[in-house]
């Protein structure tokens, strides 16, 4: 097991950040801690990295008890949301920092740093100061810096949170490819479900200091354990007494057994998709359709249709 954090609790004053949390991350996996801000995911990451001490519980890294090992001896790579670049040091010296602390020979440091800068496409910026780099470049530098010491695990705290959408998407793809090359056990914190679904092998949904569900992106999306997970991973609408995803509702033109009778209230076209707002059995579901589907049913406000969840759709009872 790459990381095993068991029975972790942490309070800040009267605020419970983590409440008896168990987390297991397999070696070599890319795991996302996903949840709303203030839910405890960053605290859990910082506890694994040794930057925060848990009130209770234990942390094992690569099978070694690490709970009482200070951060500087855990050999963990940590990447911060706001880069935490050493502002007074060049890009080269930033990446070399961990190796200099470990008193590696100069030649080895030079070789290794250039290798890493090459990997993150920053070799031509080696002599620049962080202030002369863009946000995305700074974060790649921070990643190279964390990887330089060959950490047992790599921890990233909202690594793309401060970047604009386009750069974020690029870095996301790039992180995935980098991880496939390096195979280092990686945990990253995010509140962006798309980021988690796209990049990770496994997602851990954390809310209110507890783990709501753990599983692969598909498992979580298709079989959410509760309405929180379902709502956090994608759009949810209510059809009768069930919660269902808007693209998982079948719209039928004729009465069918098991389908709810509904009336179209409004149609909104957004690019290639059509959103139909309806009323059915005391609920107000909305359905996501393609334009072709909407035209085939000749949907228009006031038309009566029959609605049911698609046969393999994930649904939850309204609680």
């Amino acid at each position, binding site marked *: 097991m790459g990381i095993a954090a068991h029975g972790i609790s942490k309070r800040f004053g009267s605020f419970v950040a983590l409440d008896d949390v168990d987390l297991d991350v397999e070696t070599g996996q890319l795991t996302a801690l996903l949840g709303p801000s203030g839910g405890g995911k960053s605290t859990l990451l910082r506890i694994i*990295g*040794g*930057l925060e001490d848990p009130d209770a519980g234990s942390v094992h890294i690569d099978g070694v008890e690490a709970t009482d090992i*200070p*951060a*500087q*001896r*855990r*050999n*963990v*790579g*940590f990447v*911060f949301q*706001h880069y*935490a*670049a*050493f*502002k*007074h*040091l060049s890009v080269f010296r930033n990446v070399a*920092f*961990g190796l200099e*602390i*470990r008193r590696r020979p100069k030649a080895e440091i030079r070789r290794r740093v250039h290798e890493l800068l090459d990997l993150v496409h920053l070799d031509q910026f080696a002599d620049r100061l962080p202030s002369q780099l863009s946000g995305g470049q700074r974060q790649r530098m*921070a990643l190279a*810096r*964390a990887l*330089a*010491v060959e950490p047992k695990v790599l921890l990233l705290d909202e690594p793309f949170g401060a970047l604009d959408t386009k750069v974020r998407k690029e870095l996301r793809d790039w992180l995935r490819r980098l991880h496939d090359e390096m195979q280092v056990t990686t945990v990253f914190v995010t509140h962006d479900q798309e980021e988690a679904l796209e990049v990770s092998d496994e997602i851990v949904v954390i809310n209110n200091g507890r783990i709501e569900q753990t599983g692969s992106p598909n498992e979580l999306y298709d079989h959410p354990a509760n309405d929180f997970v379902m709502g956090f991973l994608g759009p949810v609408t209510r059809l009768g007494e069930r919660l269902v995803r808007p693209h998982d509702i079948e719209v039928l033109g004729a009465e069918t057994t098991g389908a709810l009778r509904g009336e179209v209230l409004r149609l909104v076209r957004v690019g290639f998709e059509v959103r139909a707002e309806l009323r059915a059995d005391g609920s107000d579901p909305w359905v996501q359709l393609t334009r072709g589907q909407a035209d085939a049913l000749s949907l228009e406000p006031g038309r009566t249709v029959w609605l049911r969840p698609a046969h393999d759709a994930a649904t939850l009872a309204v609680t």
Partner: protein
Amino acid sequence: MVNTITDTPPVVAPPPVPATRTRRPRRRRLVRYLLRFVAVGYVAALVAMPVVVVTWRVIDQGWSVFWEAITAPEAIHAYKVTAQVAGCAVLINAVFGVGMAILLARYRFPGRTLLNVLIDVPISVSPIIVGLALVLAFGWTTGWFGSELQSAGIQVIFSMPGMVLATAFVSLPLVLREVLPVLEEEGIEQEQAARSLGANAPQRLWRITLPTIRWALAYGVVLTLARSVGEFGAVRVVSGDVTGQTQTLTLVVDQRAEQFEPGAYQLSVLLIAMSAICIVAISLIRPRGER
């Protein structure tokens, strides 16, 4: 019209009503000149005039008098004393200033607010009171610890340690007040990053914290030096003002002026020159620190 606007700070003009358009800027300009005159006059009367008068007196008395005054044995001894006292005070305040700034910026503890307020007390309390308080605390006959110090053979009052204490006290907050805002602004992430990369506490201090605050620290040190060299009140009380022994430069100036001995103006000009050098040093450091 156009010129008067470009050569003065931009003023946000309200969308003008045509009738007032021509009159308003003129009145404003008048007010602005008046304010400038008051400001310049105020500084001239308070600062420039005394400096000019002293300097003029020195020039009037001639180069040989100046040279004689600044190379007098008492003066040379006073340079040494001043350098030692100011040097020690700067060192103490640099070390404790940085330490306290880190403590206040990084940790929350009971009494933190009180400490933060207490640090500014030396600036607001009259130096003479500081001097008297030190005599009360450390004097051999009057002091709380007087008899213990005497039996240990440590003389604080009327000697170097007391003068250093007094000088360090009056310049206490200067380094800290420069360093603290920089530490608060930079936050703790760089240090945490260094920690996760394997740096222990001394390595983090040396490689991350000190480089981060280096310009603020330099600025604080120059301010402390200027304040220490110019200190008079507290040092006068605790030093005993013994000629050729515990006299700093300001005390020599005071003695010469009091007893109408020559040299007071010459040494004053020397002190003014030191302050000027400090001010220049500060203005050279400041823009770099703000960058």
